[in-house]
């Protein structure tokens, strides 16, 4: 009766083999590497680049241990981190203009393992070192910005439609337009309602003053917030690429938050600097009458500014801002009619209107496209306006090659944050601490496992050994599962692993105590084993399900490192149910199920007088 059908043994054997296979990559360790990947789509990583990189390394006498060429990039392995960092700096100087050159760690496991997806566990930042930021998008700021824009648009629309108004004001969440007579207000409602679909208009009379109150519709507000967060994420992603981080994580967290994780980054100052940049785009007119030489000597004409031009040179630019980067919906590199590199910019409706007007009024003059970054304004390009440009498609061409065109397109597309952002949480872990944490977590689990094993083996003798083997397979399944799922392992996660060892043994203790109970009550050895497993099952399920409940609670409400603990705890419970019951039972059945037993090798049992009288 203590026999398993063959298929059960096969299932168990296969799962143990799979567990072993997927746990194995964790023991090969990792070696420092430099990863070269293209900065923009369309740039190839090919043999030529690889040869160039190898040549550069040879020139500088930096030994490397092998290279991998993949479609996504090149990886070069080094034996120590010193060489790795030197190589990164040199390669960055040589090929860094078109490629991201980043430090990375490569698993040392054989190639075929990587092909079947057998990777080491994905270590969290507290174990590998790096920076974690949580940024909050300032929605109030985004709203103010949007209202400011609407304010200007409403004003110009009213002027175009020749509707007289007595002033436009913005308060915290709405725009108030005053009118002198009812007729003008009526006309304004019908005209503005047509143009501004995202605004809700309401008439209001305060102290005999005729007002029209415009507010952003709730659904438009939600859309605006979502776009703001999405655009900020895109912007951040482009900026992180500049940092040269191998596996950055940039994701939305909640309605208005963004998480940025940069493994391996130590220079937090630079990271913050780049993430926190508030670049904006502006279109202004060039003051061509001004004396640039006089300006360079220090006498800048009023209403203008002396600005440096990309690629050298200076320009006098008028202070009045005609158009801002918020109006850009897209920017793509391409070519103009003369086969010159150009950037094609698409503007939104209001942007197109403003641009049409400004080009009509300024044919033959130069306009300047500026990038404002941390209060430093730079002229990206200052083309001559050849004709009126309508339809919202703008072509920027000038002294650019195709690579510059790509850069400008990138900057225009993602140069500006849609809304200001603030860092509200930062966790930085140095690499030495990361390594220490791994060791600590590993030792806690190892020594915990060893001491429990010794105790259980002494206490329950041969059955105890089986319990310990089951516990070991539990750990194997847990690590294998974490490796397959590539769930993030944190230090609390490793604590969860240790805790799983301590809690998983409960199931086997329950079973073993039950077997002893049955023996004490006079059951035959085989019957005792059978009843022990059967009767302990209820309690095992109950105890594990309640702990699982706590784990799920932690997963739902926990954040960051705590979530890591919760994931390991929950997975640990699932593996416990399998290994403590099925695997240990299979072993017992295999060793003892098929023969006559005179006793169960479960250690000496005290037989109590009371128990025989009770039954």
């Amino acid at each position, binding site marked *: 009766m203590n026999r398993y059908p063959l298929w059960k043994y096969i299932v168990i054997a296969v799962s143990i083999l799979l567990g072993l296979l997927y746990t194995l990559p964790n023991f090969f360790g990792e070696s420092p590497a430099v990863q070269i990947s293209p900065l923009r789509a369309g740039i190839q990583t090919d043999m030529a680049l690889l040869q160039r990189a190898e040549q550069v390394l040879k020139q500088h006498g930096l030994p490397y241990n092998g290279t991998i060429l993949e479609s996504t990039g090149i990886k070069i392995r080094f034996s120590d981190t010193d060489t790795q960092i030197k190589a990164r700096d040199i390669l960055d100087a040589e090929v860094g203009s078109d490629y991201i050159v980043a430090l990375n760690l490569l698993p040392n496991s054989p190639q075929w393992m990587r092909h079947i997806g057998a990777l080491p566990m994905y270590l969290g930042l507290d174990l590998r070192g790096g920076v974690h930021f949580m940024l909050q998008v300032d929605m109030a700021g985004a709203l103010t910005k949007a209202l400011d824009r609407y304010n200007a648009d409403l004003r110009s629309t009213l002027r175009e439609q020749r509707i007289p108004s007595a002033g436009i004001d913005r308060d915290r969440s709405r725009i108030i337009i005053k009118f002198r007579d009812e007729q003008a207000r009526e006309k304004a409602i019908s005209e503005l309602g047509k143009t501004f679909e995202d605004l809700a208009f309401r008439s209001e009379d305060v102290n005999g003053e005729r007002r029209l109150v415009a507010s952003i519709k709730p659904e438009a507000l939600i859309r605006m917030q979502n776009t703001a967060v999405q655009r900020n994420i895109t912007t951040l992603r482009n900026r992180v690429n500049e940092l040269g981080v191998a596996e950055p994580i940039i994701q939305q967290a909640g309605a208005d938050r963004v998480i940025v994780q940069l493994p391996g980054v130590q220079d937090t100052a630079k990271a913050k600097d780049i993430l926190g940049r508030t670049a904006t785009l502006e279109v202004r007119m060039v003051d061509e009458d001004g004396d640039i030489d006089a300006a360079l000597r220090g006498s800048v004409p009023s209403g203008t500014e002396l600005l440096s031009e990309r690629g050298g040179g200076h320009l006098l630019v008028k202070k009045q801002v005609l158009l801002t980067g918020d109006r850009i919906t897209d920017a793509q590199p391409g070519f103009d009619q003369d086969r010159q590199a150009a950037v094609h910019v698409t503007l939104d409706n209001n942007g197109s209107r403003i641009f049409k007007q400004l080009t009509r009024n300024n044919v033959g003059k130069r306009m300047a496209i500026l990038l404002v970054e941390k209060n430093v304004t730079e002229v990206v390009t200052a083309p001559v306006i050849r004709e009126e440009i309508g339809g919202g498609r703008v072509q920027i061409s000038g002294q650019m090659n195709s690579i510059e065109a790509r850069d400008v397109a990138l900057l225009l597309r993602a140069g500006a944050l849609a809304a200001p952002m*603030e860092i509200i949480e930062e966790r930085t872990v140095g690499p030495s601490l990361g390594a220490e944490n791994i060791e*600590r977590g590993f030792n806690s689990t190892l020594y915990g496992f060893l*001491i429990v094993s010794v105790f259980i083996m002494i206490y329950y003798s041969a059955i105890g050994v089986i319990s310990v083997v089951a516990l070991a397979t539990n750990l194997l399944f847990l690590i294998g599962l974490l490796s397959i799922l590539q769930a993030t392992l944190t230090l609390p996660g490793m604590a969860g692993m240790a805790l799983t*060892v301590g809690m998983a043994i*409960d199931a086997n203790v329950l079973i073993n*105590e039950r077997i002893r109970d049955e023996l004490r009550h006079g059951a035959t050895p085989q019957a005792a084993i059978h009843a022990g497993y059967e009767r302990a099952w209820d309690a095992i399920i109950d105890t594990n399900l309640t702990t699982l409940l706590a784990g*799920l609670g932690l997963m739902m409400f926990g954040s960051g490192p705590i979530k890591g603990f919760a994931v390991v705890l929950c997975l640990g419970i699932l593996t416990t149910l399998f290994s403590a019951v099925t695997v240990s039972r299979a072993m017992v059945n295999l060793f003892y199920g098929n023969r006559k037993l005179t006793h169960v090798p479960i250690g000496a049992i005290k037989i*109590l007088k009371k128990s025989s009288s009770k039954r």
Partner: protein
Amino acid sequence: MDFFRFERDIPFTRWGKFSMTFSLIISILAIYSLTTKGLNLAVDFTGGTVMEISYQQPANLDKTRKILAGIGMSDAIVQNFGTSRDVMIRLPVKLEHAGGNLSETVMTALKVDDPSVEMKRVEFVGPQVGDELLENGLLAMLFVSMGIVAYLAVRFEWKFGVACIVANLHDVLTILGCFSFFQWEFDLTVLAAVLAILGYSVNESVVISDRIRENFRKLRKATVTRIIDNAITETMSRTIITHGSTQMVVISMFLFGGEALHNFALALTIGILFGIYSSIMIASPILLLLGAKREDLVKPERKPQEEALP
């Protein structure tokens, strides 16, 4: 080997009065400490900045304090951490350093004095995040408690759920009370430990309840008191071995896990010890108090204990 076997049932329920009184005192003390002293909440919850830095030689804390005071941070708490070369700096939330560039300012100032100083860890939590984490922690606790009561009510009976959760919350209160009384730092990992204990302590009550149900079927003539006593005595061996094993692992964590897991292991230790005590000495008297009886668990229409043996 077979310890923890007893010739006669131990009259746990008879000690109920004493244990209830003892627990009541403990709980009142814990609540008193929590209301007067409060918890020593870590930066996770209060917001602020924690930095761990490491010097090449034993650190001069006074000098570090002076440097910090020099850049207007006289409210910094500077203390050794782990070894004499490692220093931990705590800074409250500063409005003028929004966006978390505080750590850079500090590092720059410290590097002027000693270029070899190395930054090991920085944690900056904005005040808005801290409040949220605390709120989420309490929500999680509520969710888990309700889940456990519901589960036990379905699996056994509502009286068991109530008895169990009272015992559990008593454990949680004791952990919180200890952390408050000794002013140990209460951070996110401790919160995780508290929640893990909430789930783990139930095990005890589940195993005992399971046995009580079985006894109700088996020992038809016995009084409720005897049945509970017998159930606890019979499962005693398992209780001690299981918790002993878990405690061994926790001790291993305490010894080898470093500072980061120190308080986590501490909270688990208190939770495990009081978990054993409360599920034996608190849950059972409450069960009796609530008037648990045979009919609650052994439904008449159910078949009598089916024999598992063929």
